[in-house]
């Protein structure tokens, strides 16, 4: 049995992980629902974002500070995402086997990105320096100031996105394109622009996730594999019916991971998650929080 303070610290750890995972999974889910494809380069996007932020922000790079790094990473990843979409996904828009073809192009794109990072920054591990230090405590809850910054930024980003998708005309248009491309075309929506913007937005979310991961872990060019897998687990568990479903699932996964690590150890935690994921896929493929939307 764990005592109260251990319980709270594991719980806190899980919630913090959940915040991070929701950021990673959101972009993946956005691309999946809108473009109907699975982006295997999402993990590489996360790493790329981390390295850009490091290069711009860190004293060993340009030394402009954490926040400048984060902003450049987010904007830079938006541009990279748009380029990726144009080169690797748009060519197959009218092909019936787009799902399969984009699997290989995004996998190849991810390989290229990872190796480009390797060429530019080398294989040695790096870490993004933190903007703040110290801990913040509320009773038994105790998190580092860093994690607090992350929670605040992510919450703001996701709330902003939620408002954007639900309320703004551009966001509504994005959802419309996601749900029915042809009807959106007939409504005079700028479909190519919306696709590019969606992919760019997803990439910049990945970039932001990279900034935070790079500040709490050591970065190597292959850093992205684990976040991609986690994002995948989250998206499957939650489903993509509503844009909030992956967020719920992210917290669920974060908590499961935190408690599983405590109880069954680090080695078995991924296995627990994958078993859970397979079980959900078999029993309720549309996800725990959703209705099946796309059968591509």
């Amino acid at each position, binding site marked *: 049995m764990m005592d109260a303070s251990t319980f709270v610290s594991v719980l806190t750890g899980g919630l913090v992980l959940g915040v991070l995972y929701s950021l990673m999974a959101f972009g993946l889910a956005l691309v999946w629902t809108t473009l109907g494809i699975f982006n295997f380069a999402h993990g590489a996007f996360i790493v790329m974002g981390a390295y850009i932020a490091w290069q711009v922000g860190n004293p060993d790079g340009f030394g402009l500070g954490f926040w400048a790094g984060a902003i450049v990473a987010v904007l830079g990843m938006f541009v990279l995402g748009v380029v990726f979409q144009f080169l690797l996904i748009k060519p197959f828009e009218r092909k019936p086997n787009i799902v*399969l073809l984009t699997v290989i192009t995004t996998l190849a794109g991810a390989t290229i990105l990872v190796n480009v990072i390797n060429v530019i920054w080398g294989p040695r591990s790096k870490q993004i320096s933190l903007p703040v230090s110290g801990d913040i405590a509320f009773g038994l809850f105790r998190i580092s100031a860093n994690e607090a910054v992350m929670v605040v930024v992510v919450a703001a980003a996701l709330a902003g996105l939620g408002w954007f998708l639900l309320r703004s005309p551009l966001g509504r248009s994005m959802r419309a394109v996601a749900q029915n491309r042809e009807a959106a075309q007939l409504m005079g929506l700028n479909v190519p622009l919306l696709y590019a913007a969606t992919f760019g937005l997803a990439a910049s979310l990945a970039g932001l996730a990279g900034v935070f991961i790079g500040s709490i872990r050591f970065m190597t060019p292959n850093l992205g594999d684990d976040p991609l897998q986690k994002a995948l687990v989250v998206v499957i568990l939650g489903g993509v019916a509503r844009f909030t479903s992956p967020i719920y699932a992210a917290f669920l996964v974060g908590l499961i991971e935190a408690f599983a690590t405590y109880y069954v150890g680090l080695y078995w935690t991924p296995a627990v998650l994958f078993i859970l994921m397979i079980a959900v896929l078999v029993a309720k493929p549309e996800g725990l929080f959703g209705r099946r939307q796309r059968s591509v």
Partner: protein
Amino acid sequence: MRYDPPFHRTNGLWPTLILIALAAVAPFVISDSYTRHLLILAFMYAIVASSWDFSLGFGGLFNFAHGALFAVGLYTYALTTKFLAVSPWLALVLAGAAAIILAVAIALPVLRLDGIYVILVTIAVSQLLYQITVSQSDFTGGTSGVVSLPGLKIGKYPFIRDGKIGYYYTALALLVISTAFLYAITRSRLGRAAVALRDNKFFAIARGVSEARTRVLTLAASALFTGIAGGFYGSYVRVASPDVYGTGFLTTILSILLVGGAATLWGPIAAAFLITFLSELLVDLGPWREIIMGLIIILVVVFYPGGLWAFIQELREKVDGVRTGVTATYRRKRGKTAREAMMSGAKESYIRTLHGLTAISDSGGNLPALLLIHGNSACKEAFYKQYAALKDRFRLIAFDLPGHGVSSNADPETTYNAVAYAEVAESVLADRGVSQAYVFGWSLGGYVALELAARENVKILGLAIAGTSPLTVVPDDFADGYDASSHLILSGKQFFTAQESYDYASSATAPKSAESAFMHRNLPRTDGRARAYMMTKLAIVNWPRQMRRLWENAFPFAIVNGDNDPFLNHDYIRRLSSAEDWPHVLIEIEDGKHAPFFNKPDEFNKAIVSLFAGA
């Protein structure tokens, strides 16, 4: 029904035998063991990628645990030989069996899923297996793997000796057997069921295909040689490391599959060699190698998604186009006198239309014109008996359809269809200064004749068709109007083997004899695309309009069939002709074949003369 001859009757036989023979003698030429090593790897990749092609390309199941099937084969080999002291050869078999068991296990969660969901669940399965493998480090050695596995040997002879020659031939033999297995299975009931499920799931299920059973068997079939290849890999490199679960291995196999061409079987085999050696060329470039390989794969998939196999097919089509075109040019130059002699001295002339150069044979004279239109893969000389017998009664005009005889080849998309042929017929008549004519169309030419009549640009004095079923609703009526069990099925096939060429010419005209030999010689000249492209224009042919013209009784018309025509469903035509108000006659020539004017010229000529004379 799909035309599907056994392998030894297809055009693929000789290239395959030659390639196998080349691979078998290659070790005598290539002695350095590094090149042999690459070839062994390429054989192995070819086995794994083509096996995957069966489930992914043919079955449409995005099984991304295919790498895990290989890995399970590898670990089965490692664990059984190392801990149970099983003989390496038996371990190979066990590796295949283990992969099949895993495939069946994967099939269970996959049964209810489609598309991306299958990708996700199979990735999850393979990650799960990876985690299990790594966590059991007492047996599997964790991330560093099982090392110093026993290699293959016969008696005391280890296969690694003599520049790995034993492994080379084992890999080659495995590739040949695996390919034969996959080839057979794509043509079996299972293969067809898998393709049917991929193309139209609900229709296939409604027709009695069991989805669950087919998916399980499809995955099992693709697992068998993948697992064996995994075991073989273990015996060859003598290490079982968990890297093979990773995306690197999967990406390599997937790029081989897609660069080769999905659902082709042969494409991935060819691409395995290409990618293995290409990647080897770049080995000194470090990370740039991965970048360049990634770019190449993206370029191929973006610009040419059909891949290597489609390219080979297209190349073959181009070569065949050039061959038939050159043959036509050559014959146009050299055989003209002989052809004119054959056509009882009728002059051969040429006109150029939008549809290329068209050869016309016109017996001339101030007689009523009779236009003769030949059928699929034939030529105007098919009518030489009519030229001999009827030239005093009619001005006989025949022409070679584009892509046939000594007419030139033409743009397949615009020209190789019945509507364009009718346009050519109009140009021919205009060139000959004929504004009204009797028309006889044979087989495909029959549809050209019907279309010519329906277009109403030429005054039709009388019309006869042979070997043609008039149709109202296409393609529905097609199945009713013809006998699908005949060699008719070849009429849409692009490339013929010698046997097919003989079969088709024999059914369409007559078995080879002194008088029909020229038809058999002519057939290979026909542009194969003329047969293949017809289907893309079916929707814009107004079939009921052809039929309406016949019901209107605007001109004398008769169907003149051989009663022994192997292509036709005679019952369909008899039903049509016996309709109460069908205003036309059906003449059935006793013992006539698909070309009654050729088999039974006297009866046919008599029928035509009496039909058109009565008009």
